[in-house]
């Protein structure tokens, strides 16, 4: 090998960069070649500077802040994924003609870690009842529009996410149900309101078992009449 070849090897001077055999050959050559030895010294001087740079480890100024920034992004990514999944299914469900006739019946389904619960959101009972040909609408309409039955959801009501969404005083919890005034519920019914509600629920419950969710969706889809005839 000529000096050019050895020069290349000189630059691969750190552990594991040359094979033993290459390293031996290089040492042999350096014994007999002054110009390559000189080059090796120069490289060594630069490497000392590089070592100094390497020995300074960049410092995270505020580790807690970085962790919380990361985790808040992770949590919102997680909530987005889950609520998106639920929402997509809901919208599919809603697109079914039979369900759309009922116009405002919505079923939000949430699974807990081990629990498995239906969160039922009945919206605009008045028109629901009208469309079902019911006369008793008046007796219901000032009452609960948004009804949730779940201990998980009751816990959720105490979490900040839901409180942000529905200001305190505009809902009350009775018998594991969250009751929301008719006036306040309208904002929830806008798609962005529903989106944030679903996202809040998803981020609080965290575990959504996709298979179980699919099973419930299917179940509800088949038995939609139980939804649309609410109020009878």
């Amino acid at each position, binding site marked *: 090998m000529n000096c050019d070849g050895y020069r*290349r090897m000189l*630059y*691969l001077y*750190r552990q*594991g*960069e040359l094979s033993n055999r290459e390293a031996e050959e290089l040492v042999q050559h350096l014994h007999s070649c002054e110009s390559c030895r000189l080059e090796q*010294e*120069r*490289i060594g*001087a*630069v*490497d*000392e*500077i*590089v070592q*100094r*740079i*390497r020995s*300074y*480890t*960049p*410092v*995270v*100024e505020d*580790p807690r802040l*970085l*962790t919380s*920034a*990361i*985790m808040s*992004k*992770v*949590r919102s*990514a*997680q909530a987005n*994924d889950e609520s998106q999944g639920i929402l997509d299914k809901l919208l599919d469900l809603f697109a079914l003609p039979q369900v759309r006739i009922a116009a405002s019946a919505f079923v939000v389904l949430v699974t807990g870690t081990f629990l498995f619960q239906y969160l039922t959101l009945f919206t605009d009972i008045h028109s629901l009842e009208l469309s079902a040909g019911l006369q008793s609408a008046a007796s219901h309409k000032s009452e609960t529009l948004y009804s949730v039955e779940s201990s998980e959801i009751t816990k959720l009501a105490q979490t900040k996410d839901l409180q942000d969404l529905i200001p305190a005083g505009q809902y009350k919890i009775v018998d594991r149900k969250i009751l929301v005034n008719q006036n306040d519920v309208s904002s929830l019914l806008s798609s962005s309101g529903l989106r944030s509600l679903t996202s809040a629920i998803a981020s609080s419950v*965290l*575990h959504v078992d996709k298979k179980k969710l699919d099973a419930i969706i299917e179940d509800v889809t088949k038995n939609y009449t139980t939804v649309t005839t609410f109020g009878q």
Partner: protein
Amino acid sequence: MTDDKIQELIGRCAERDVLAFEQLVRQFQSYAFALAMRLLCNEEEASDAVQESFVRVWKHLDRYDRGRKFTTWLYTIVTNISLDRLRAIKRNRRLFSSRDEDPSIDDIQDERDLHEIHSNEELAGMIRALTDELPLKQRLVFTLRDLQDLSVEEVSEASGMSIGSVKTNLHYARRRIRQRMAEKYNVERLES
């Protein structure tokens, strides 16, 4: 943290355990930051890159091969994200600023600067001065190997380059850096 503990945490993360993930983040965020900082030479960019990296880790945990070291996988992700940012920064710099604002070896004011580093900022200045003129591949390989101190194999995995290509780029990078230092400072005469 032991490998077993790391694998246990990863197992819990795969089941979408956010608290387990938080432990993983606490354990590895400084490694990730060090690499991002050395590549990007800017605290804010590095911090953003680390956040983006961990979100990607969380989302793509199912793609992690448990037979490999977690840090190697993490480094691959941090490297990819940092490189994307580096390319964007370089593009913007070309578009929006004059050549004068680019850091160069001339930013190192005197030989004393070559000795001590006391802050992220000083570090960034030093690394930029040494590596800013290098082609991206050389810069990447040099940073992973000589600054982050990964093995050649780890560099190969993190960069997606073959071992041979890693060595070739490493050789060019070191040679270029040596030449620049020599031109500027007669560095070979520096005492250790």
